[in-house]
Structures are given as structure tokens and as C-alpha cells.
């Protein structure tokens, strides 16, 4: 083994220097006179990706296929699930609760995504200035993001409660009547969306800040000579150069926010009525409370379609802008 190594090392060094990179690759090829060892060498990269492919195949790719198959079936988890054709999909069209859930989910997303992306950009631009205590501000802003949603929601239950909650204490200080923040059908989604913004904005701030710090300072110096500073530099240098990062973040935010589950599940259980029920909560309920896996699978595939369509729309819409 050792002599083989030395040999290889010698043949490698013995090549003329002018041969460059190929000189370094050749010894490995020369060393494969036997077909078997050649196959072994060819197979080696597959060995490196095999563990990932195994996990991916069993716990992601296979379940996706199974979900599609499930959506054509109906019946109990423990019993036999019968093939029912497209009836699950047909049912979606007449299901008013499904429509409510789509609307609720989109309402969350429409409030949250622009606020976290816009807010993240502004905060990152401020943090990117030569300021003191930057480390403190960064940790402060990211804290709501790294907090487990359940823990974060526990705080907000407490702050938003009807009697004694901080929000209503503030109202009563100004002589106003208390508000049922989570008990009113019109307020519940905006309130949960606000909590989601509070949780999310720090994440996008950190991502944008990292992007901004990679923009060459010379650009700002050159612009400053032309008198372009501050807000104008932000619009004319930072935003255009950050466009790929903004696009990426918006797609991520879309994928992420359309799957909102944790906070409404713990805060309101979807109530009052169904006014804060989201698509994922509906999937959860159909599958595990009403024991209808097939219908739940059909809803989940509709959610996938929704995410895919929105992501593709964003990618094409933004990309047109990027080309200049």
C-alpha cells in the first residue's frame, strides 16, 4: 500500500511541469489496469452521495409519490383505503371550507411577505452603516426568529389576552374599551400576521445584511463623488445589486409562509369559527381528526400547486427586471 502511494507520488512529480492540471490527473488513470478497480473508481462518487440519496429516497421522494397515490383514495388510516378516482379533487371545488382556508392562507402571506422583505431591507441597510453596537442590534433582531414558535406564541397569548393583557392595558390607559384581539374574526389574521412579522423580520435582516456587506465599498465611494448618498444610494446601488438575494428571499418567504401552522394552531386553534384556519391546519384536521387521509393528501397537493405557481410567477416576474 505504502509503496503504491510513493509510486503514484513519484509518477505525479515526474511529469513535466508544463503539463499543468492533466499531469495531476493522469497518474490515477494509469494506475487502473484492472477493469474491476476502474469500475470501483467510477463508482466511488456514487458512494459519497449514497447516504443522502438513501434518506432522500425513503423519506422524501417515495412519500411524495405516495401522497399523489393517496389523493386518489378514500377511507380510514387503519382500515382499507379504496380507490375513488378524482372524487377527492372534485370535492375540493364544492368545499367552502377549503376556499376559506385558501383565502386565509393567502391573507397571511400577503400581509407578512412584503413587511418582512421590506422591513428586512430597511433594517439591514441601517445595520450596514458604520454604527456602534451592531452586534447587539443583530442579536436583538434575530431573537424572535430563533425562539421556538410555541414559546413565542405563549408570550403573545399573554400580551393579547382580553383582561390584563398589555395591549388592552395600554388601551384602557387612554380610556379606550378593551379589544378582543384574537376573538374577533376581522382582527385575528392581522394579529397573527403581525406576530409572524415580528418573528420573521430578523431573519431577512441578517440575510440582506450579509448580502450588503459583500457589495464593494468602492461603489459607494464612487457614487458619493457624484453626490449619491444615503437613501438614493440605497435605491440605486444596494437594491439593484441585491436583487438576486431579494428574489431568493421572497421565494423562500412564499414557500415558508403559505405553510403557516404553528402560531394559529397554538394561539387560536383556527378560531373564532374558521376565521384563522390555514391550509396546513385543514390538512392536519382532515387527516388526523376526521381520518380522511385521501382528501387531506388532495388538499396538500393543491397547496403544493399554489406554492409552485406563485414561486414561478415571482421568478419570471423578477428575472425580467434583472436583465439589463
Amino acid at each position, binding site marked *: 500500500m505504502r509503496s503504491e502511494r510513493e509510486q503514484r507520488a513519484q509518477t505525479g512529480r515526474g511529469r513535466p511541469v508544463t503539463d499543468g492540471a492533466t499531469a495531476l490527473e493522469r497518474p490515477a488513470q494509469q494506475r487502473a489496469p484492472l477493469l474491476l478497480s476502474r469500475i470501483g473508481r467510477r463508482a466511488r462518487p456514487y458512494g459519497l452521495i449514497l447516504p443522502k440519496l438513501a434518506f432522500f429516497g425513503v423519506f422524501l421522494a417515495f412519500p411524495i409519490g405516495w401522497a399523489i397515490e393517496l389523493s386518489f383514495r378514500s377511507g380510514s388510516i387503519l382500515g382499507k383505503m379504496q380507490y375513488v378516482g378524482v372524487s377527492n379533487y372534485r370535492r375540493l371545488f364544492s368545499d367552502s371550507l377549503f376556499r376559506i382556508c385558501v383565502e386565509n392562507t393567502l391573507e397571511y402571506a400577503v400581509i407578512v411577505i412584503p413587511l418582512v422583505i421590506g422591513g428586512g431591507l430597511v433594517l439591514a441597510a441601517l445595520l450596514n452603516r458604520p454604527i456602534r453596537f451592531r452586534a447587539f442590534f443583530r442579536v436583538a433582531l434575530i431573537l424572535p426568529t430563533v425562539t421556538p414558535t410555541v414559546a413565542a406564541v405563549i408570550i403573545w397569548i399573554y400580551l393579547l389576552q382580553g383582561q390584563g393583557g398589555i395591549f388592552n392595558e395600554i388601551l384602557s390607559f387612554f380610556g379606550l374599551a378593551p379589544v378582543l384581539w384574537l376573538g374577533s374574526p376581522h382582527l385575528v389574521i392581522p394579529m397573527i400576521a403581525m406576530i409572524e412579522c415580528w418573528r420573521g423580520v430578523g431573519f431577512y435582516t441578517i440575510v440582506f445584511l450579509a448580502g450588503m456587506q459583500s457589495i464593494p465599498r468602492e461603489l*459607494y*465611494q464612487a457614487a458619493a463623488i457624484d453626490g449619491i448618498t444615503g437613501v438614493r444610494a440605497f435605491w440605486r446601488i444596494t437594491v439593484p445589486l441585491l436583487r438576486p438575494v431579494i428574489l431568493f428571499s421572497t421565494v423562500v418567504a412564499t*414557500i415558508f409562509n403559505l*405553510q403557516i401552522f404553528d402560531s394559529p*394552531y397554538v394561539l387560536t386553534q383556527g378560531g373564532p369559527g374558521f376565521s384563522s384556519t390555514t391550509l396546513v391546519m385543514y390538512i392536519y384536521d382532515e387527516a388526523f381528526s376526521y381520518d380522511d387521509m385521501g382528501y387531506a393528501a388532495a388538499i396538500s397537493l393543491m397547496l*403544493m400547486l399554489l406554492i409552485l405557481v406563485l414561486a414561478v410567477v415571482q421568478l419570471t416576474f423578477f428575472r425580467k427586471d434583472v436583465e439589463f
Partner: protein
Amino acid sequence: MAAVPGDAGRRPPTSIRTHGRSVTAGTYVALSLAAVLALAPFFFLMVTAFTHTYVEQVAIGKLAHPTLANFRDIFSQTPFAHWLFNSFVVATATTVLVLFVDSLAGYAFAKKKFAGRDVIFFMLLSTQMIPIPVTILPLFLLATRMGLIDSYYALILPAVAVPIGVFMMRQFIKTIPSELEEAARIDGLGDLAIYWRIILPLCVPALALLGFFTFFLSWTSLLWPLLVATSDHTRTVPPGLATLVGQYITNYGQISAGAVLSILPMVVVFVLLGRQLARGLVSRTVKG
């Protein structure tokens, strides 16, 4: 550079150091306001956790006599210690597995040439847009049939299938000069040795970012543990805390103590890894 009115008392910023952007008081005011909004809820959480209170009112006045009673009670009156232990085991195991499996695959995708490489890579990545709920239903059936319900395996294994880490590691490893690898090969190192001794040590920022991300996702996960962690033997902190909300009369002091304890590890990890995370993130956004 024109001096900003009202800036006279301060040292004028040199135009090179600040590259034409002056830091005004407005920047600090805006950032402080944002920090206050971000942190205020935690302040009230701490007040509740450290004052003995069953009443549903924030009692700031009681802060003069802080108590650890809530922390004592949550360990003695609920299975919180179990949940905490389970969360640590699951998040740590998931993170170690993901880091190993993803960096290994990322190395192959970044540095190796093999038939079908780009097809396989695209296949992995294309599933990134597929929402978790799509796979959760079949995964539940799979876990049931494999007898994994109420076991750590059910909590750990599906999380290792997520493909984003392979993408992150590949992007980072691509930036490592191939000369290093070739030199090591001349010295007789095999693929695995190169991976272990050359690639991994150079990947620390990317590993830190991916590790933090994976640990965070596992630590905060609610939906999947709700389904498969059916007893306190495997139940993690988030579903555990969720069972305390609205059970009997909500004991805010006790739940707040639990919430504080569930936040603490993430804060510690973030502060410890802060610098590495920033580096991993920069290389990712620039080169990604």
C-alpha cells in the same frame, strides 16, 4: 462631504471610512425602536417567569422579589425535564447526521465528475419547493408501518432527507481551490481522507450555518412531533409546551418559565456561532 446639521459637536466622519454615508441620530433611533419592539415581549416573558403569579396580569411591581418557583414547579409538576432531554437528543442527532450526509454529498457534487451528476442534483433540489405537509401524511403511514411511532427514529430520520444542505455544502466546497485536493491526492490520500482532512476543516463556516439551521429546525419543530411523539418518552419541548397551553387553567408563570428554558439553548448557540454564521451566510449569498 457636507456636514449634517446638528452634527457639529461630533467628530466629522471621514468620507473614506463611511464611504459617503453619514450616521445620523435617526439611524440609532430607528434601530433602537426596532430592537425595543423585538425585545419587549421577552421582557414581559421574563417578568412573568421570574415572579410568582397565577393572575393573568403582568406584575412588574413584583420584580422587586424575583423567584425561581416557576422553574422549580415546571420540573416537579410537568414532564418538562423529559421533553428537554428528548429535544436535545433529537436535535443533536439530527444535526450530526445532516452535517455528515450533506457535506459528503456536497463534496461529490462540487468536486467529482460522474454520469448523471447534474440530473441527480437537480432532482434533489427540485423537491425543495414541495411543502412539508405533502410528505407528512405518507410519512405518518410509513412510520406506522415501520413501527417507528413514539421513537426517536421517527423524529430524526425524515429530517435528514431535506435537500437544502447538500446545495449549501456544494456551493461552499466549490469555492475551495481544487489544487489543495489534487496535492492531497498526490500525497496518496483517498476520497474519504481528503473529505475528512482537507474539505471538512475548510468548511467550518458552512457547517456552522447548516448545523445551526438544522438544530434550529429540529428544536422548534411542532407539527411532526405532534403526530409521532405520542408519549412523554419521546415528546419534545414544543409539543410539550403546547399541551400546557389551555390545559386546566393556564399557569402563565410556569409556562413562561418553560418558554424561557426553550429559548435559552438557541440563544447560546447563536451567540457562540455568531461570527461563523455571518461568514457562512456571506459566502452563500455572494457565491450562491
